[in-house]
């Protein structure tokens, strides 16, 4: 009989023409790793010898299943063929794999494991290794597809806006109001904090430099122009990307994972009108307001620093007003409309494209934030170039 601490061993031998698998030792997942001896045949074992088999846990059937799959090239098993009217031969349970000579408990487990054939074409293709060439090819295809996807999504958004204009877009007004609150009022605290600090930083850095020329008062110009042209709108865009773009992607993505979007479709509700349109509208409406607010708070931050360094508040304010004319003031607000659209589209698009799982939602959220921050910066550079050419 078996002794209790023998190492686990699987050994291939032959009896006449038939391969035989000798199973021995104690199989324990905290014990030693099993040893496989002898040369594996190209057919499954015809019988087993288990004279020296001690106690075993799942490691034994797992190893045996792997071995049997190897010898049959993965095609092992399958339930008894449906045509066979007779009771399946008790020794030939699984399409040519015999389990003769196994103790009853092990045999039962192996019958279960071999009971349903491995579905080879169901394996995920991702698992296969790729060569560098394939990798580059597939990557460029993916990038191309992604670009097409963006263009298509923008096209769909425009169509959706068209339906809105002719009054044929169906969405819940309540959703629009909720989203407006969500990306308007509720964003005020963080927008206030960041813009205020940006104003303060600009004033500190600029004030220090300008003091060298005895031109401290021009801090007001510097802060004012920087805020209303660039910093106010860009910072608001980045905040809204991380806050609202991510929320859009996560919400729509989890709706997709839960088949909620399919449910909209089968009621004849266009998911685009229903989900993307209110979010797009809300953000396009709220971004300019947030931007104006951010500009004011930023100027306030600068003024605080100015006052602290001895410039009278009234003087600072008047200097700011002379520095900023209406055109300058409207540039940032103008850009904010485009940033809002870009953030909403990136967020919603990643949500709609998300893989239907909780991991997919996480990925979509990350992608949405990265894509919308990138879009904000890229659009801003484009506007900078355009405004320079137009000399505004």
């Amino acid at each position: 009989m078996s002794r209790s601490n023998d190492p686990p061993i699987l050994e291939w031998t032959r009896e006449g023409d038939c391969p035989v698998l000798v199973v021995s030792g104690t199989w324990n997942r905290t014990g030693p790793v099993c040893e496989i001896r002898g040369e594996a045949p190209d057919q499954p074992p015809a019988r087993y010898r288990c004279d020296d088999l001690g106690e075993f846990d799942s490691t034994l059937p797992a190893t045996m299943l792997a071995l049997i799959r190897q010898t049959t090239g993965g095609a092992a098993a399958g339930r008894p063929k449906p045509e066979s009217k007779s009771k399946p031969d008790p020794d030939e349970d699984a399409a040519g794999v015999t389990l003769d000579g196994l103790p009853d408990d092990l045999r039962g487990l192996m019958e279960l494991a071999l009971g349903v054939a491995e579905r080879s074409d169901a394996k995920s293709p991702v698992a296969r290794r790729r060569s560098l060439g394939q990798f580059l090819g597939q990557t460029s295809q993916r990038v191309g597809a992604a670009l097409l996807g963006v263009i298509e999504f923008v096209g769909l958004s425009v169509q959706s806006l068209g339906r809105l204009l002719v009054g044929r877009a169906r969405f819940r007004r309540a959703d629009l109001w909720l989203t407006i609150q969500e990306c308007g009022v509720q964003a005020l605290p963080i927008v206030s904090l960041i813009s205020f600090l940006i104003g303060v930083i600009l004033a500190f850095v600029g004030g220090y430099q300008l003091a060298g020329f005895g031109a401290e008062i021009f801090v007001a110009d510097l802060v004012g122009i920087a805020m209303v042209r660039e910093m106010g709108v860009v910072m608001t865009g980045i905040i809204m990307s991380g806050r609202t773009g991510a929320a859009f992607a996560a919400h729509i993505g989890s709706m997709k994972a839960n088949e909620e979007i399919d449910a909209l479709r089968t009621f004849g509700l266009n998911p685009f009108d229903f989900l993307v349109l209110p979010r797009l509208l809300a953000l396009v409406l709220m971004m300019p307001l947030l931007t104006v607010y951010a500009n004011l708070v930023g100027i306030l931050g600068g003024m605080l620093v100015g006052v602290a360094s001895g410039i009278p508040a009234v003087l600072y304010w008047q200097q700011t007003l002379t520095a900023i004319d209406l055109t300058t003031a409207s540039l940032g607000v103008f850009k904010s409309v485009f940033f809002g659209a870009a953030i909403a589209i990136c967020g919603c698009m990643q949500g709609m494209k998300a893989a239907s799982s909780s991991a997919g939602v996480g990925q979509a959220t990350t992608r949405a934030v990265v894509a919308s921050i990138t879009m904000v910066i890229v659009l801003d550079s484009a506007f900078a170039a355009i405004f320079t050419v137009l000399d505004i």
Partner: protein
Amino acid sequence: MTRPSATPDKTKSRPAGTAAPARISVRGLTMAYGSFVVMKDLEFDIAERDIFVIMGGSGCGKSTLLRHLIGLHEPAAGEVFFDGENFTATPPDRREKFIRRFGVMYQSGALWSSLTLAENVGLPLEEFTTLNARQRRELVNYKLALVGLSGYEDYYPSQVSGGMNKRAGIARAMAMDPDILFLDEPGAGLDPLSSRRLDDLILRLRDSLGSTVVIVTHELASIFAIATNAVFLDTDTRRQGAVGPPDELRQRADNPAVRLFLNRGEEVPSD
């Protein structure tokens, strides 16, 4: 009512008793995810007022078939007809007249998670009818009462159990009194009594509204209690195993896998 099983290789005729064009006809349908073929050459008819069961082992493609029937997936090959009109050939943006006649309950329930149960059932009414708020509320309460969810109107889907989610999903599917009701495993996760009630509900709906019901289920009790017709999807061959009334299939299906399935794995001698 219909004749015994028609396996695809033997005969492709529709089940007897459907002289009128079938409510739904599936012709040579092949379903695939990319290169992974789920089922090939499906071919069957669903008559008006049928309670038609799609059955088969888990993972064999029942939900996938349902999603093809309602147009959420495009077939790799073959077509789906409603009342003789080609649904597959209709471009997706002109399918609204078909879709308006469907009521669908998804396997996961798929209730809109940001709306209460009442709002879920009421949303289609709000969008597509001219009912006033009071009338809508009454209809919603009635539909929720039908599935035994009175009192839960103002709960959110995350606040009720899985089985209750499913029942609310059925109530939502019935919201617009659809001609054709598609239910994906409505009985799964229900206790025996609710499950029984559900069978009752489905029968009554069919009888009183004249709806056609397509159900994915593998609950034998409910299959034999309510199904008038069924298709069996065979995982091994990836084709349909048999079409016909389940009682007859249990006794006389040519395909042993079908008999095994309907007898819970116990082979009965075929006559």
